[in-house]
């Protein structure tokens, strides 16, 4: 592999990492509160501590609709949003906008599922001690669910690596972009192969670190 390809792959890898990092951060900022809201407004027998059936139904519907969209279509639909925020629809920054928004509903469901696993008896005990709802969420629910939340975030990052490659194919930068421009349009199968291998390695590393972290947290309990 000559140094030109190496440089291209290295640059694209950095772009992908940057893109995935920021879209993870932003999708968590949007998805975490949404996931918590989905859980606490659920029915009492589902572990909801502030049951709000109507709000819960509406949120749940919106999340489901967004999640059932094919990702590529969602990206295209979200292009105007990126244009509105950044003034452009191409490049890594534009991808971060649509990736974050597209991943947020996924994150919300992942968080909600983790919170549903928390022992209801523990929540009842916290309530009996006179905790406010905010204290139950922040001091009990989230810490109790932490190992599971870490697994959820790991899954989100892995998904975002895949999504970011797709975003690349519509001009978003990163490894997907590289694979399309060189591997596909210029028939450079070596570049294509390099991009694919790097993506696989990224996924493996994230999975490994995530598993380790989650089991370390569990072992301490």
């Amino acid at each position, binding site marked *: 592999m000559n140094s030109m390809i190496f440089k291209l792959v290295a640059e694209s890898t950095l772009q992908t990492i940057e893109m995935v990092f920021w879209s993870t951060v932003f999708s968590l900022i949007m998805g975490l509160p949404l996931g918590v809201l989905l859980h606490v407004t659920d029915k009492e027998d589902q572990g909801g501590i502030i049951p709000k059936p109507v709000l819960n139904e509406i949120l749940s519907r919106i999340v489901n609709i967004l999640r059932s969209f094919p990702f590529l279509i969602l990206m295209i639909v979200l292009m105007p949003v990126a244009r509105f925020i950044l003034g452009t629809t191409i490049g890594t920054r534009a991808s971060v906008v649509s990736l974050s928004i597209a991943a947020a509903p996924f994150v919300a469901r992942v968080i909600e599922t983790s919170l549903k696993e928390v*022992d209801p008896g523990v929540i*009842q*005990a*916290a309530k*009996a*001690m*006179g*905790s406010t709802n905010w204290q139950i969420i922040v001091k009990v629910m989230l*810490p109790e669910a932490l190992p599971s939340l870490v697994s959820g975030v790991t899954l989100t990052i892995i998904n975002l690596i895949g999504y970011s490659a797709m975003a690349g194919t519509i001009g978003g930068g990163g490894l997907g972009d590289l694979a399309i421009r060189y591997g596909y349009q210029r028939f450079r199968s070596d570049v294509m192969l390099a991009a694919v291998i790097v993506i696989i390695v990224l996924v493996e590393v994230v999975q490994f670190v995530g598993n380790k972290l989650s089991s370390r947290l569990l072992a301490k*309990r």
Partner: protein
Amino acid sequence: MQIRLENLKRDYGSLHAVDGVSLNIPSNTVYGIIGRSGAGKSTLVRLVSMLERPDEGEVWYGDKRVDNLSKKELIEERRKIGMIFQNFNLFSSRTAAENIAYPMEICRKPKDWIKTRTEELLALVGLEGRGNAAVSTLSGGQKQRIAIARALACEPSILFCDEATSALDPQTTRSILALIKEIQKKMNLTVVMITHQMEVVRDACDRVAVLENGKVVEEGLVSDIFASPKSAVTKDFLSNLTNVKDSIVKLSDKTGHYTLRFSSSTTSEPIISRVTKETGALFNIVAAGVQYIEDKKYGVMVLDIGPDGETEKKAVEMLKRSGVTVERTVLEEEA
């Protein structure tokens, strides 16, 4: 704190889980509420502890009505009670000490105050030095001790126990009950003890109410109920009690220095009388009963031997020769 329940009702759909319960729970007592599984005990305790609102009826703590409080008052009032559960319900994300600290944290007590008080509470429940333990590394009895310490952190006047010993073996149950009784006296608590085990009522409660299908079918002093049970449920509970594997009745609070075990081969002879006659020993019986050890039945006596060391020695020797197992022991203060 005295607790008064007036005609409490709670329905789940068409099911009357709690169906018109009126009770007077005097302050400074251990009050038992016994009933079979599904009788409505947990529902009742949730109503009384302000975790759930009754459909009808009133709950009074002393002169304060607490079943119709606003959200803010409710949180305020809940901080003045303690509660422990069958499954302990400790926070797995926190160490033993951090569990105890939780109720103090949510009341925004100062940090060093919390630290001192946590150490105090660990000592109170007999777990000094175990503060840093992860919850999962503790035994069931230790978990319940931590839960008790957590419940007592903000010095409540009422402690609710919902099947607090049901997940524990008989010996641990006894030690937890002893601890609750000790704490009740020390802190002048009103303890409401929910259970489906008559042993718990016998060993720990002053008064008891028997619950069946959401209704109180019998109520009174434990000694009265044991002497003359009226309802069929109570009789049933009591009849099960006679099959209890390990029933030693403690007759005195004094500690005995010897445990004698009579196996079936020795029980046909008047050994104690003979020893008294021949050695002049005086026996002071502290506790007695029947014990099953690995499915073998033993008569057990815990006693002191007097009047002096010389006689004591002779008597022990003679007992041993007669086939009685003699152990020098102290009858545990069960704490």
